[in-house]
């Protein structure tokens, strides 16, 4: 087992790995249908030559080099080679549009750009006149670039070969490169990661080498990662998750980073590589499960019955077996049988057979979804983090896993909840400052050195784990002072398959109300099974039996809220089902499918008013945009339903 230990820069860790794990695979990449492998010794040699080559084309210490592209060994080596020269790599999202790219390249003062292929080179060239300091572009894949002006373009392969030749011909030069690596200090800025910038222009988060290595050393120990582990490096290079989980942990633990053949082949590559450490956002786990379920629908009846039966066994005993709780012998036997005929083959199909530790983060994960993967024996856990922390703020230790918490503080991390309800932390990996942005650095750091996350949360009483409820700026209070976290409520509602979207209201109000969208597929098939006839979305949405169905889900949400002291007062008292689906074309959702609460409150003001004035029906007419771009008006009468609060102190009658 290895970790960061006494090493304070990544290039030094690379040399350590070459000495210690010499012939262990460091990188794999599927090229022309075959997995190519590079050992730590080979990578150390290539990176040394690459660093020499980069120095010969003029990369100086503390200068920046941007990296644009997907997960390719040569792009990871660019980071290593730049860090070896004490220069600073700045990865950029490969799908960034020209404007975002220009902003980052110009703001970071990049001198060089490493681009993956023609597409990225074209993008960089198209904005190069707005990036004043840009000198040269190096690229990985030469296809299509033959006729380009090569005065500023060089293939990475050629840079490495040039460096190798220079090193071979001049021992003093080699000594000079090694000396730069030795001189590297823990306080050197190791990388600048630009946050995606949902709020204003993106910020360049500067992370120092020592802090990065300290942070990963802790989590490598926490999850007992070793040189025998394998990760599939498929997350965006510019995202802190990839830099942390794959690059930094890979160097600290000495495990192998496998790069997929292309973005579209990740699924197949996952099966072929069989990673032991795996991260995916909830959306990916959800898609995987949906695919399995759809395929099972088409399976033969006997297989389907077997599938249902053993998933039932897994639901009952799987979680307990995984966390080591007592389980009756009969349960253990049935689970063992299920493992050999269903769980293991299923995990194999998904490419998860060898996974020892899996994490998910980024958004709330549905409890059923989470339980499904854990019940079939996948050690799926949640973490909470952000770029400013160099990822980890909290993570769930083995044996203490809950779908609705993000776990206790990660090793050596201090967390406190501010007066306002905002989560603040101090962590080993916390950022140094924002690049060229003193004002926002000061805004984000508290005087006593904590980082403000901008997220609101609280510590769960039963488990002592942190629960994240919403962005702090979206959290409001009811008239009686109860915390009102709209997204927290909306997520709880959306976990029910019949509810597609939810918008909660309650800031400065007496109680909480919600506007809901039903899921046409789920409710439609439910209606079919229950012989409910309907002609349109609008008709189905307004059907009394559908209201009954949804009211049950809302009551369920209230029951779970009642169990949490902080949230018990924020139960949903009234709701309505909207006559149309919320749509990005009408400006009701963002392009990433997040509800725009303020806009919806304005657009449906008569409905919101009706929710609070006690009436049981309201009329609304709204302008809608059809798929071909024409506009029209939909008018509807929408019903409003009351829901009893569980364990409530005051009846609704008085509140309304």
């Amino acid at each position, binding site marked *: 087992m290895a970790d960061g230990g006494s090493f304070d820069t990544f290039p030094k860790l690379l040399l350590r790995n070459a000495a210690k794990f010499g012939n262990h695979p460091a990188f794999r990449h599927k*090229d*022309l*249908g*075959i997995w190519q492998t590079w050992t730590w010794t080979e990578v150390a040699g290539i990176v040394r030559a690459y660093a020499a080559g980069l120095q010969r084309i003029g990369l100086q210490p503390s200068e920046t080099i941007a990296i644009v592209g997907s997960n390719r060994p040569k792009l990871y080596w660019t980071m290593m080679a730049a860090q070896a020269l004490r220069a600073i790599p700045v990865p950029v999202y490969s799908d960034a549009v020209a404007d975002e790219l220009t902003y980052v390249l110009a703001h970071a003062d990049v001198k060089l750009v490493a681009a993956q292929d023609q597409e990225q080179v074209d993008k960089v060239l198209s904005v190069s006149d707005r990036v004043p300091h840009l000198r040269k572009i190096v690229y990985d894949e030469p*296809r*299509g670039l*033959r*006729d380009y002006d090569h005065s500023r373009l060089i293939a990475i392969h050629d840079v490495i070969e040039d460096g190798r030749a220079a090193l071979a011909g001049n021992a003093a030069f080699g000594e000079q490169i090694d000396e730069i690596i030795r001189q590297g200090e823990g306080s050197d800025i190791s990388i600048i990661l630009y946050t995606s910038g949902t709020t204003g222009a993106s910020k360049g988060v500067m992370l120092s080498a020592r802090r990065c290595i300290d942070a990963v050393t802790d989590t490598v120990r926490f999850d007992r990662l070793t040189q025998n582990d394998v990760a599939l490096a498929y997350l965006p290079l510019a995202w802190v998750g990839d830099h942390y989980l794959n690059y930094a942990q890979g160097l600290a633990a000495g495990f192998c980073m496998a790069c997929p*053949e*292309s973005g*579209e*082949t990740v699924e*197949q590559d996952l099966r072929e590589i069989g990673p032991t450490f795996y991260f995916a956002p909830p959306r990916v786990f959800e898609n995987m499960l949906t695919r399995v379920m759809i395929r099972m629908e088409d399976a033969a009846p006997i297989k389907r019955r077997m599938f249902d039966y053993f998933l039932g066994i897994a639901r009952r005993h799987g979680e307990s077996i995984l966390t080591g709780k007592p389980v009756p012998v009969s349960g253990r036997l049935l689970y063992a049988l299920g493992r050999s005929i269903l769980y293991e083959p299923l995990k194999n199909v998904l490419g998860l057979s060898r996974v020892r530790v899996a994490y998910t983060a980024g958004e709330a994960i549905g409890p059923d979804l989470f339980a499904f993967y854990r019940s079939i024996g996948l050690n799926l856990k949640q973490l909470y983090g952000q770029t400013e922390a160099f990822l980890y703020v909290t993570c769930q230790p083995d044996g203490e896993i809950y779908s609705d918490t993000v776990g206790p503080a990660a090793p050596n991390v201090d967390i406190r909840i501010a007066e306002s309800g905002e989560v603040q932390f101090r962590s080993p990996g916390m950022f140094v400052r924002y690049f060229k942005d003193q004002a926002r650095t000061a805004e984000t750091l508290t005087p006593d050195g904590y980082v403000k996350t901008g997220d609101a949360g609280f510590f769960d009483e039963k488990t002592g784990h942190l629960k994240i409820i919403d962005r702090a700026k979206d959290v409001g209070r009811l008239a009686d002072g109860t915390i009102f976290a709209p997204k927290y409520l909306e997520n709880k509602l959306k976990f029910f398959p019949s509810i597609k979207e939810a918008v909660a209201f309650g800031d400065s109000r007496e109680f909480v109300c919600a506007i809901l969208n039903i899921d046409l597929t789920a409710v439609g098939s439910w209606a079919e099974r229950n012989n409910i006839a309907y002609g349109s979305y609008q008709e189905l949405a307004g059907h009394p039996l559908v209201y009954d169905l949804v009211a049950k889900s809302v009551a369920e949400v209230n029951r779970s809220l009642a169990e949490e002291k902080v949230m018990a007062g924020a139960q949903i008292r009234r709701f309505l089902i909207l006559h149309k689906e919320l749509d990005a074309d009408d400006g009701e959702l963002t392009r990433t499918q997040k509800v725009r609460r303020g806009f919806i409150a304005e657009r449906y003001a008569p409905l919101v008013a009706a929710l609070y004035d006690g009436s049981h029906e309201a009329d609304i007419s709204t302008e809608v945009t059809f798929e071909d771009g024409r506009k029209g008006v939909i008018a509807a009468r929408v019903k409003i339903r009351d829901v009893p609060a569980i364990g409530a102190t005051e009846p609704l009658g008085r509140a309304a």
Partner: protein
Amino acid sequence: MRMPDTSEILLQVEGVSLAFGGVKALRNVSLDIRKGEIRAIIGPNGAGKTSMLNVINGFYHPNRGAITFKGRTRAQMQPFEASRGGIARTFQNVALFKGMSALDNIMAGRTLKMRRGLLWQMLRYGPALAEEIEHRHRVEEIIDFLEIEPIRKVPVARLPYGLQKRVELGRALAMEPDLLLLDEPMAGMNLEEKKDMSRFILDVNDYYGTTIALIEHDMAVVMDLSHRVVVLDHGVKIADGTPDEVKKNQGVIDAYLGIAH
């Protein structure tokens, strides 16, 4: 777009006429294809475009006229001679082995290049194995070139039309042809698929230096892609030249828009 480096003529069609009974598909058509160029053959429905391609690759035998390919003149050529000689083609209606994977379909394009006998190949041993590895390598390069890695092992019948067309192009490329004939490579494609296909055609021409003759209905595509265009109408050549020249030609405008009678 780069113009071809040479004006060397790869294929010369002289005075070709073709008739099916009373139907005169081609009437005394002459055209040339220069080495390294993208040559488009256009015309309204029934103009004789596909007949022209079929004549070039030996599927139809012209009643009159001669074809000179790579300096050898012959009145008649069999399809297998054409493919051995270095002419590959794709079809208007995709003609792949539906049950085979994309990879196997493209491998099929290497058949003519395989040297080992049936027995060796069945044993898949020694020289036959070495040969297969070599061919697989070439095929993987094409798969990489056409960006179809994700569908390598998928039976082509399960692929959408646009991808099937791409696999077919891959199979034609696997033959490493001197002349590539594309019969309506974009028919039935949506805008995005057309863009992709156009890029691949340009890339093939640029990267492999393959001479390409294509039939296409989408005028915008033809004008963008090709170096020279020949226009057929009712089996007669009515225009021949650069896209700009052809666009201005009154005969072409009349053929496409009709003449007031």
